[in-house]
């Protein structure tokens, strides 16, 4: 066995597939732990540039309609009801999360550097593709029906907890603030902290690890595994670009760290409770391991932007009870 820095164990094996260059077929064979490592492997002391990430996007882009969910549908029928429910409680946060991060991105374009605008156009296209990926999964595997994307989202809404509205409602309202004041750097920092650092960098990577780990260990849902692992690789680019932007803002105006901390404080207050119990054990996890995973993801993102948490925020991290969602 090998122990990853995120604390999980998995069978010792060679790494036959390069996360950076593999195609859609190959990405399905990559272990999720390797993709999570890839997020933080910036290849140098500095985070990669926006155009470097844009070039990566052009090579790593995949076609969501190439996935065949036939085997996943057969697997889904055989999964026991408790595991199905736990899986849906976690995956539905992503189903809705992807839609939210797609539709809430546009006002961010105005106030960011020119090269980031180029990259962000690819980021937006990724999120649209991820929205379609989950729409297909819920229709073709879970069996939800609907004429529109929103119909299917309404179908899975029953599985997400009330606390989902915390981070995603905040994102929605920050988007509206940015729409009104797109060049406000305080709002831009708050937005990037909520979106790229917390939702994508902490929550999303945790959900990916948990559901993909379940699919890997139970040897089920191959198309979900492929599409969601490819999604995770896409998120790596988004997170790296977002962390670069936060670092640039801080380098330029160090006092903006107050906005980063106040946004995190808000997110951590909202993350100190939950409204529904998730039976993590049914898919091989425990609440304590999930909390530890999220805390570790946060620590790694803060390291990328060169920020240390004040003591009071660190205490809040230790007590968080976060909603599992992402985008």
């Amino acid at each position, binding site marked *: 066995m090998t122990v990853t820095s995120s604390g999980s164990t998995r069978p010792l094996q060679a790494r036959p597939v390069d996360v950076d260059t593999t195609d859609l077929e190959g990405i399905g064979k990559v272990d999720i732990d390797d993709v999570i490592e890839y997020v933080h492997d910036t290849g140098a002391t500095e985070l990669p540039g926006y155009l470097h990430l844009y070039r990566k996007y052009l090579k790593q882009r995949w076609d969501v309609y190439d996935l065949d969910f036939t085997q996943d549908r057969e697997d889904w029928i055989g999964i026991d009801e408790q595991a199905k429910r736990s899986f849906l409680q976690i995956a539905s946060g992503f189903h*809705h999360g992807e839609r*939210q991060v797609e539709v809430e991105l546009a006002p961010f374009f105005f106030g960011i550097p020119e090269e980031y605008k180029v990259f962000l156009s690819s980021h937006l296209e990724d999120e649209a593709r991820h929205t379609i990926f989950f729409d297909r999964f819920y229709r073709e595997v879970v069996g939800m029906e609907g004429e529109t994307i929103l119909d299917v989202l309404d179908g899975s*809404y029953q599985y997400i907890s*009330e*606390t*989902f*509205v*915390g981070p*995603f*409602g*905040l994102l*929605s*309202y*920050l*988007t*509206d*603030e940015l729409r009104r004041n797109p060049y406000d750097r305080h709002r831009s920092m*708050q937005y990037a902290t909520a979106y790229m650092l917390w939702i994508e960098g902490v929550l999303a990577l945790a959900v990916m690890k948990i559901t993909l780990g379940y699919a890997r260990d139970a040897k089920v849902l191959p198309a979900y595994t492929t599409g969601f692992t490819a999604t995770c690789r896409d998120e790596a680019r988004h997170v790296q670009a977002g962390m670069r932007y936060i670092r640039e803002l801080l380098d330029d105006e160090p006092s903006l760290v107050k906005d980063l901390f*106040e*946004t995190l*404080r*808000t997110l951590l*207050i*909202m993350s*100190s*409770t*939950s*409204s*529904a*119990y998730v039976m993590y054990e049914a898919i091989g996890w425990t609440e304590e391991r999930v909390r530890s995973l999220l805390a570790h993801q946060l620590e790694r993102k803060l390291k990328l932007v060169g920020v240390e948490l004040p003591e009071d925020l660190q205490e809040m991290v230790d007590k968080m*009870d976060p909603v599992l969602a992402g985008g």
Partner: protein
Amino acid sequence: MATTRFFSPEWAEAARAAWNAGPSEEVKDRKLQKYWDWIDDARNRTDAILGLAVDDLPGGEPDCLLLHLEKGVCTYVELVPRSEAEARTTYLLTGSYADWRDLMDGYDAGKTIMYRKLRLEHGELLDFFKGAYLWTESLACLQKIPTELGS
């Protein structure tokens, strides 16, 4: 059960009562106790004036309900013109009449926030979200008011 016209003085008073009554036992039982404890903590921290405004209320002004909250308890309500609200409120939520009607008809309060059917037109955004679930659950309580709505 008698209904009251949306944004009438009687409806405003019913809103105060519904806000203070909180969720039903049935609703409470569906969610974890620690969630309600969080809301109680948020309520105890909340001294504010919350404005709820309708962009296109049939009949026009007064089109904004002010809820005066002391430790989260609504002590007083008043109906005022929207033009007065910004200067007087801690937080001002506004929405179209159609979206308010959907909410009063039972549309999910969480989605109402997440899909930005109500917008925060005034107030410190991060502070508002430090009480996020207090606001969503309290908006849901307003759905209990038997309300007369137009088309």
